């Protein structure tokens, strides 16, 4: 029995993570071969996941690290971790 589009959408996140079992993966693959909508939904979701993971999206505030380590130096000067 062929699975429908909604069924595919439910598993898109797991599919992207390689977290679906072999039988389900085969069914989804078969569906994707002939369904341009699900293919586009999958490709766009995967594209969004890749883009948001890029370091350029979230950057630490300028000077964050140096301020953190300066603060740490004050703490380290106080004494042993107890």
């Amino acid at each position, binding site marked *: 029995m062929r699975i429908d589009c909604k069924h595919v*959408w*439910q598993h*898109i*996140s*797991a599919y*992207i993570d390689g*977290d679906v079992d072999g039988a389900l993966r085969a069914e989804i693959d078969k569906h994707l071969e002939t369904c*341009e*909508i699900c*293919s*586009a*939904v999958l*490709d*766009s*979701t995967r*594209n*969004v*996941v*890749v*883009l*948001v*993971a*890029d*370091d*350029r*999206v*979230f950057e*630490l*505030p300028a000077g*964050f*690290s140096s*301020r*953190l*380590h300066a*603060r*740490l130096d004050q*703490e*380290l000067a106080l004494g*042993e*971790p*107890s």
Partner: protein
Amino acid sequence: MMTLSNPVTEAELIRRILAGEKQLFHALIRPCERAIYFLLFSLLRNEAEAEDASQEAVIKVYRNLHLFRGDSQFRTWVLSIARNEGLGRLRKTETRREDSLDALTDGEAGDFTPAILTSWREIPTETLERQELADMLREAIEGLPEIYRNIVLLRDIEEMDIRETASVLGISEGAVKVRLHRARALLQRHLAPKLKGFAPKGRKLFGWMR
């Protein structure tokens, strides 16, 4: 993105710090800095407060280092401390906003239908050189409800596995998967229509170059 932690080196660093080489703590905490800050930013949604909370959390890690047992990853332990620091601060500020911590639960109904498209032209990561694209992505993530925002942050941005994400947030692995799925669906639905404009133009570019 965080480099993969090396447990052998980590354990060795911790041992030496506790034995008195305190300066090594800088090196120990450095790989966790980014994740600490963005986890706290995701909770507190304010740069200055997230930075202050990050510093407090790192100092708590240092002071409690002798309590780390090595039965979880160091980074997981550190991020749990950071999250507690953030939650403590949220509790102090009484009525915060509509998006309070228990405003949304996994049972809550919602529409997680993706944006329907008939084709997708891949947007390469180099396109992120355009600030407006990076801004659009950041705003989309910041606009997610908290329970989805922190999942995206840990799982997709800091690249933690399901187990580690579950452990930092104190939820089950199943809940991580459900929330991650919903978060990605919300992002796709919100972003896909807007992102189309960033797709490479193909032939037109050639015409433009001439």
